[in-house]
């Protein structure tokens, strides 16, 4: 799939994953790469951008003995942005699908 398409939606996918639960960066990359073919490392620049935009925040949590691990969490702003971006995306894809299907009808 076209890399430019992916770039645009990865942010939305990250927000979606975080809207369910707080995650490690690792969880997010695992979830996304199950469905979309991306490099695992791509998730962290996105998380950093979301953090600098104030949409996500991080906290450290002690896990069974080992060093503390970093969790990502959606902020209130992040949740609002996600809801809006999700709506826009679904609306957009619906329209694109409509255009594509009309196009196919003409070809027939």
């Amino acid at each position: 799939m076209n890399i430019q398409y992916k770039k645009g939606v990865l942010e939305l996918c990250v927000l979606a994953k975080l809207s369910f639960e707080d995650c490690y960066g690792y969880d997010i990359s695992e979830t996304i790469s199950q469905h979309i073919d991306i490099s695992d490392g791509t998730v962290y620049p996105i998380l950093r951008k979301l953090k600098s935009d104030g949409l996500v925040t991080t906290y450290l949590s002690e896990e069974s003995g080992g060093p503390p691990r970093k969790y990502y969490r959606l902020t209130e702003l992040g949740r609002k942005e996600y809801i809006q971006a999700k709506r826009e995306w679904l609306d957009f894809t619906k329209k694109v699908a409509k255009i594509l299907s009309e196009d196919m009808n003409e070809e027939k």
Partner: protein
Amino acid sequence: MKKNEYIGALQSALTKAKINDIEEILADYEQHFVQKMEAGYSEEEIAAQLGRPDRIAAQFAEITPQQMEAVRMGALPAIGLGVAAVPVVLLFILGALWGICMAIFAFASAICGGFLIGKINLAKIIPTMPYSSALLFGIALMALAILTAAATMLYFAYLSHLWRQYFNWQRRTINGESSTERSQQQNQSKRTLQTLIRISLILFGVFAVAGYLNSVILSGQLEFWHAWHWFA
């Protein structure tokens, strides 16, 4: 690539791309290695799935907030702002001066409008006229002040946008990086300003005309300023 090699390569790529908070970023990737190793992957597999360190560093460079870059630019005079850039910088300074003129004009309009509305005649700068005319002209001037102030803000936003683009272009030319487009987040405030400009423009027009008509009717002359001896 082993974990340590990968982290080392990533560190040098991030350093080369002048990214801030490298330690924090590396900690994320270290944790990623640890967790994937717990899930049973080998260090080589994990490194391969992460993607090339230079590509990742480029992605971090793309999303670096612009303010940070501006600070870094300021700290590095050796950015290559050579002799050729001086006219451009002068142009920007001129542009900024023009913006300041606009701001002063807005301020002056607000003060005159305030004087007219509030019946204040400091230093006798307000010519004689009935208060109804003064009120209408005063509101028109206030609208003009808002109009100019909003236009000034838009103008400065545009100027700083151009300025950043110019700097980024310089930086890319020097570093030989590929061009990256950044999304604008201030679209909302921009739209608000544009609405404000439209509304204040209409208010200004309406009240200026109303003030003029009112003055003409009260003075009985089209050139009402003669009737009230403004320039006598």
